[in-house]
């Protein structure tokens, strides 16, 4: 078996898991306040992601660690070539984490609104910047024989900004559906309406993104050669339509699952188009970092695949158990006890 290919799939799965899971809590982070009126409702918005966001973020840490272990040259290239962008993502994630932790620690309204605001700004930046970063990955980077030759401003090209906006739209929709499904009363009702409106923006941005990807990136090649891969973007369209229909029928929980599936299929479509590149060169494919020229040794890849095979299902099992344990919303008494009131 070619373990480099296995690891490409695992690499795609880890990033996909991160986007589909952290996506809703980033969305709640930057847009949850739109569905809330007054301190008590804001508290319910934040408490809906309280038990989950930290576990969701581990998917990013694992994706990063797996990139390091399985594709060291990609890890080194991605993080150093996009240095300022990665620094901003890092600062956003740090700010997001402390904002969620600190917000409930004092009862002063100024303190609470400061951290709620900083959670919103940092969650938005993280969503946008991940989109911009992956937009550049999909588009290809200015990699020549000496490595990366682009600039920070060059990363802010229209296609990458479109991808950034698309990520924000996905996470907005995903986050609002989460609130519609996990909270009760006026917050859930408002979130359902916001998701419903947001869906149109998301659908428009997705259509633009698919058109731009087809016309101006190399992502389409694999779909033309291997037609069966088209099941991914077609499934994406179906899942997104299903989310809208289920929401309209008053089934926000199922709509959320459909939205989860749409993010998974969106992300997998992108990686399927990218293959066998991890960091594609716009200058010349010969300079691209691919499954073949950037992976670790067969020994390391096999060992890490075994580790992933044993521990990833165990980790997912634990997380599923946690989602079930906290299926019912947290009560005010529970929040007081948690110190996150």
């Amino acid at each position, binding site marked *: 078996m070619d373990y480099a290919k296995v690891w490409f799939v695992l690499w795609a799965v880890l990033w996909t898991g991160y986007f589909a899971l952290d996506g809703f809590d980033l969305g709640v982070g930057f847009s949850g306040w739109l569905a809330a009126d007054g301190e008590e409702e804001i508290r319910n918005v934040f408490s809906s992601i309280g038990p989950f966001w930290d576990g969701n973020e581990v998917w990013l*840490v694992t994706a990063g660690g797996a990139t390091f272990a399985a594709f060291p040259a990609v890890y080194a290239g991605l993080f150093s070539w996009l240095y300022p962008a990665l620094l901003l993502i890092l600062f956003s994630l740090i700010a997001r984490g*402390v904002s969620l932790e600190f917000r409930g620690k004092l009862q002063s309204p100024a303190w609470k609104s400061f951290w709620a605001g900083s959670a919103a700004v940092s969650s938005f930046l993280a969503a946008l910047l991940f989109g911009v970063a992956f937009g550049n990955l999909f588009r290809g980077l200015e990699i020549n024989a000496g490595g990366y030759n682009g600039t920070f401003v060059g990363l802010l090209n229209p296609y990458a900004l479109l991808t950034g906006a698309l990520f924000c739209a996905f996470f907005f929709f995903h986050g609002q559906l989460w609130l519609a499904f996990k909270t009760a009363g006026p917050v859930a009702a408002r979130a359902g309406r916001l998701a419903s409106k947001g869906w149109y923006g998301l659908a428009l941005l997705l259509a633009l993104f698919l058109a731009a990807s087809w016309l101006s990136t190399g992502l389409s090649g694999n779909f033309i050669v291997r037609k069966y891969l088209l099941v991914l973007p077609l499934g994406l369209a179906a899942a997104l339509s299903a989310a809208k229909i289920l929401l309209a029928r008053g089934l926000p929980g199922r709509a959320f699952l459909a939205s989860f599936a749409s993010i998974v299929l969106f992300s997998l479509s992108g990686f399927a188009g990218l293959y066998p590149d991890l960091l594609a060169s716009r200058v010349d494919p010969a300079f691209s970092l691919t499954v073949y020229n950037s992976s670790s040794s067969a020994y390391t890849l096999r060992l890490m695949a075994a580790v992933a095979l044993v521990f990833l299902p165990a980790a997912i099992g634990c997380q599923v158990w946690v989602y079930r344990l906290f299926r019912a919303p947290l009560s005010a008494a529970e929040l007081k006890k948690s110190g996150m009131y």
Partner: protein
Amino acid sequence: MDTLALSRLQFALTAMFHFIFVPLTLGLGWLTAFFETRYARTGDERWLSITRFWGKLFLINFALGVVTGLTMEFQFGMNWAEYSKYVGDIFGAPLAIEATVAFFMESTFIGVWVFGWERLSRKAHAGAMWIVAFATNMSALWILLANGWMQRPVGYVLRNGRAEMVDFAALITNPYGWLEFFHTVFAGWVIAGFFVMGVSAWHLLRRNQEDLFKRSFGAGAVFALASSLLVAGVGDLSGVNAAKNQPAKFAAMESVWETRTAAPMALLTIPSLSGEGNAVEALKIPYALSLLAFHSPSAEVKGLNDFLPADRPPVPPVFLSFRTMVALGGLFILLSGAGVWLWHKDLLQEYPLYLKVMLFSIPLPYIAIQLGWIVTEMGRQPWAVYGLMRTAEGVTKTVSTGQVWMSLIGFTLFYSALGIVDIWLLAKYAKKGMEG
């Protein structure tokens, strides 16, 4: 400063900041789990108050440990791209395993513990904290096996222009990594013990909730004493290990310049600032250095003159950090030993001076652990991977000095603000005392 110097400074600052928060987590998790188990077993509400008080401090501290850990993962790629490419095949594995195996557990079950008071039985809820405590210590194991590989590279071959793993068993049984692991986690436990004693002392001095804080103090003191003894024992083995595997580091730790057998140890040593030899060497104890280095009075100890100046670590900071750390380590045994005795005899309130000393001793184990890492990491210089890759070869080539200046300034400002808020919150909640 050039990119190399700036990148080193940034890595040192961010790692040291991360390590203000991580070590307390390593020990306070066990103590909190122990308190909660007492509650689960007895149903005595006093243990619940104790659990919730220390658990809250655990969480405030934990928050910054987690987010600053992200930086460490990003930074290898951002600032040390050449290093990452060269060693990722073997060095990346323990980091990825840490994320998958330990960090997953820790981050998942901390949420269960924080929010699950009403959803789990008392025993299962205590179990969540045991899992968190175990997972944080397991995190340390994988990270330190990675660091141990940088200190003593094993299980690899040089192939395809990089270090490739050929023996995973050698990587995970590397004695250097295991010694670092035990030395570091025991040191973290000392921090937790002193933290619990110091905060309890503050309340005992004010006669607040005396019963609850005496119980806390006792647990902290016993834990701190056991851990101080363990950390010293592992420290001795670590010295032997350094002398064997990294003779230049050991020579810098002791500021030894001439190679000789049956080497004495000068209690008073002042390295000369010119970078060659010692300005003062007095109060020599015969054979002591050979005994420390190899547990044998006649053994030969290598001096720094045997190494080219370009292959020597910076001597004064390594030497001074090491001496100070060892002195502090001795002090911890005395202070925690006294604490165990006074607590056992129920004399704590009779000795307010001792309680005051314990309050002001809270920072000391933090200082010791930072000094220990200065010894470990500066002592490894000029190597990133001992004998294999120099630090200067590992730095990213494509990042400009201006970009690293920007990130360094960004980290300094951002981290300072976060550190101030977090420590202020810790102090606020520590002073508030227990509920109920």
